[in-house]
C-alpha cells in the first residue's frame, strides 16, 4: 500500500468487549481485532465466510438494536461495541443414517425441540447468511426434507440461531440431519456411479490404467497433447 493510500484511510473507534481501540475503517472486525493486537485462537477459522467460527454480536453506540455478523465478513463501524461468540453449547443427536427414514416420526425422535417452534423469527433475523431459518424449521416439522435441505444449504453452522432461540432448537444440527436424510433417501442414487464403482472393485478398469502407469513420459506427453477434449 503506498503512502497516499495510507494517509487517506480514516480511523474509527471500536470497543472490543468494552475496551476502546482506534482502527482503520476499511478493516473487517477480524482484521481490526488483530490490528488491535489480538492473536486469535478461537473465533477465527477460514477467514473467508465458510466455516462459521467467527460469529460476532455488536451494537452501534446510540442504537438499541443488537446486530450480528461474521467477524471476517463484516466491516467495522464507528462506535461499534462487539464481542465474539466462538462457541455456544448445543446438542447434536447421534444417529445411524442407515437405521432411520425420512419421516416426521423418525425426525421427531432426533430433534423433538423443532416441534416447539413459537414462530418468533429470531433465528431468521439473526442469520448472517440471510437464510430463512424459521421457514426451514417449518419444512422440517412437515417432513418436507427436500425443501428444508434446499433452503438450509448455505448454513455455516455458526450457532447464532441457537443462541437466540427461546425454545432451544438446535437449528443447524437439525438442518444437517435433514439434508443427510434428503440426500440419502429422497434424492435418487446415481445409477451409473454405482456401475462404475462396481466395475472398479471387480478389476474391470485395471488393464487400461496399468498401461498408462507403465508408459514412459514421452508416450504420456504425446497422449496428453493429443487427447480429445469434451466440448
Amino acid at each position, binding site marked *: *500500500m*503506498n503512502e497516499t493510500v495510507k494517509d487517506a484511510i480514516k480511523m474509527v473507534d471500536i470497543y472490543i468487549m468494552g475496551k476502546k481501540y482506534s482502527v482503520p475503517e*476499511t*478493516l*473487517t472486525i477480524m*482484521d481490526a481485532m*488483530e*490490528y488491535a*493486537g*489480538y*492473536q*486469535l*485462537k478461537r473465533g*477465527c*477459522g*477460514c477467514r*473467508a*465466510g*465458510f*466455516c462459521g*467460527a467467527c460469529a460476532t454480536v455488536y451494537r452501534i453506540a446510540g442504537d438499541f438494536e443488537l446486530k450480528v455478523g461474521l467477524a471476517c*465478513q463484516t*466491516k467495522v463501524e464507528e462506535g461499534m461495541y462487539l464481542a465474539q461468540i466462538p462457541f455456544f453449547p448445543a446438542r*447434536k443427536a*447421534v444417529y*445411524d*443414517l442407515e437405521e432411520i427414514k425420512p419421516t416426521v416420526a423418525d425426525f421427531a425422535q432426533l430433534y423433538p425441540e423443532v416441534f416447539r417452534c413459537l414462530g418468533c423469527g429470531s433465528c431468521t433475523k439473526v442469520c448472517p447468511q440471510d437464510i430463512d431459518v424459521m421457514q426451514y424449521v417449518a419444512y422440517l416439522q412437515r417432513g418436507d426434507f427436500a425443501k428444508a*435441505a434446499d433452503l438450509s*444449504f*448455505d448454513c*455455516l453452522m455458526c450457532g447464532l440461531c441457537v443462541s437466540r432461540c427461546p425454545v432451544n432448537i438446535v437449528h443447524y444440527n437439525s438442518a444437517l440431519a435433514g*439434508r*443427510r436424510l*434428503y*440426500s*440419502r433417501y429422497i*434424492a*435418487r*442414487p*446415481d*445409477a*451409473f*456411479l454405482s456401475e*462404475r*464403482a462396481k466395475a472398479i*472393485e471387480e478389476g474391470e*478398469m485395471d488393464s*487400461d*490404467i496399468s*498401461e*498408462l*502407469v507403465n508408459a514412459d513420459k514421452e508416450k*504420456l*506427453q504425446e*497422449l*496428453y*497433447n493429443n*487427447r*480429445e*477434449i469434451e466440448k
Partner: protein
Amino acid sequence: MAYTPQLKELMKKVEASRASRVGVEYPRMSPEERRDVLRKFHPDYIEDGFRNIKVGVDKGTRMPNEMADVFEAYSRLRDIDLDLKSDPDYDVDVLIIGGGGAGASAALIAQEAGADVLLTTKLRFGDANTMMAQGGIQAADKENDTPAIHYLDVLGGGRLENIPELARALVMDAPLVIKWLEELGTMFDKNEEGKMITIHGGGTSRKRMHAARDYTGAEIMRTLRDEVYNKGITVVEFSPAVEILLDKQGCAAGAVLYNLETEQYLIARAKTVIVATGGSGRLHYRGFPTSNHYGATADGLVIGYRAGAKTIYTDSIQYHPTGGAYPPQLLGLLVTEKTRGLGAQPLNINGEQFVYHLETRDVESSAIIRECEERGLGVPLPTGITAVWLDSPIIELIHGEGTIERQLPAMMRQFHRFDVDIRKEPMLIYPTLHYQNGGLLIDDQARSSVENLYVAGEAAGGIHGTNRLMGNSLLDILVFGRRAGKSAAEKSREISTPEGLNLNHVASYHQELEKADAGKGRVGPVMLPHYTHR
C-alpha cells in the same frame, strides 16, 4: 467498498466487448507457449525465493525461504521436561493429527476397521482448507470418461512429475469416494434422475467436476464431521501436536499435544500415527496473499520431518489464478474456479481476453502475472496493486439469468457484502497462494518413510506432481485419508503397546541445527500466524 468511479469507467470496456466474446473460444497455448510462460513468470522459478535446507533427512532440498525457516527451527519442547514414562494422557490404536477432510475420513475408516481412534486438531474440528474448497471434486463416473482418461489429465497437469502409483490410486478410488459420500448423505448437485451434474475444470478433458453448489468442501466436511460424531470417535480440539513421539525401535508411537488454551502439554501414545495437518499458505511465500485457512502453517511437515519423514516437491507451490484483489477485504480470497468453469474470462484493462480461461492453474496464473508485469495491461487499483478483470456477468449471457445465484451463491454473497454485484459487475482478481503441491512422501498405502507414520491430504506430496488440477484436492484428501485410515488400523493390530517413548530424534535435530548454525531464535511449528499490528 464498492468500485470507485475510475474502476467503473474502466469497466465499460469490459461491458463493450462482452457480447462479442460469447461463444468465441480463445486459443489454448501450445506446449511450448505453456513452458515459456511458466519459466518466465511462475513464482516457483524465481530463484531468490528459495534456499536449500541445511538439516534433516533431506538436507540440501530446495524449498521456499519461509518454509525453510520453519523447518530450520528448534522444537517448542527444547527446554521442557516431559514425563514420557508414566501412563500417557491418551492411549489409542490410531492417533490422527488434523481435523480436516483427510483426518475425518481416516478416522471413519480406521474405526470401521476396528481401531480405537483419537483425532486431535489445532483449532475446531473442520477448521481446514477442506471447508473452503468451493469448486468441486473430480471422479470419472460418466459414460464417456474412465479413470485412465482422468489419469492422463492428472499427469499432464502435474507436468508428468506425479508418482504414478499415487496418481493411479487417486483416479481409481475416485468413483468409490463419490459413492461413499453419496451414501453418507452428501448433497451433491444432481438432476431429477439422480445423475451427478458435472462440469469442466482447468485442465480436464471430460466434464467430471462434481459440486455441491459452491460449498462443495463445506458440504463434504460437515457431513464427515457429523458422521465422526455419530460414530462416537474421540475428538480433541485446540490441541495441536508439537512433536511426533518415537518408540525404542524408532517407529512412530504417538505425539506430544499442546492444549492451546490451558498451555499444557499432553502425551498421546498410539500404535500408529496419521499426519493430516494440511497445507502451508499462511506462511505467505514471497509475501503473496493466500486463500488458505488460518491454521495452514505446515505444522505436520515440520514435526514429520523432524521424526525423519522424507519430503517431495517442497519447492512446488500452487498459485490460484483467481484470488480476490478488490475490494481490499477480499484480498487473497479464493474466487472459485467454477466461475471460469461456467465461462467467466480473464480480461485486461482494455477488456480484451489474453489467455484461454481454463488453462491449468500454473499457466493461467503465470499469464495473469505476465499481463500485469510485462505487458503493463493490468487494472491499477486504489490499493496500489494491479489486477485483471474476471468477467462474471458473461455467465448469465451464456447460461441464462439466475445462474450465478444458483451456481455461485457463496461468491455472490461474499462480493455483495462489500457492495459488488458479480451478476452485473466483473470481479477483480490476481493470483493467490493456494496449495502446497509437495509435502511428506508417501506410498499408495499412505505410508511415510518412517515406520508406523502415515500421511494424508495436503501434507502429503507426489500425487499431483508439481501442479494440481482443480477438484483433485478434495478427492486426494478423501482417497488418501481413507487409505491411511485403513492401513494404520490394520498395522495397529500387529503392534502391542509401544515401549520406550522418546524424543531422541528432536535432540539430534537440535544438534544438527547447531552444527549447521541454522535456526537460531526460531521455534517451530509456528501453529498460529502473527497478524497483529500489521
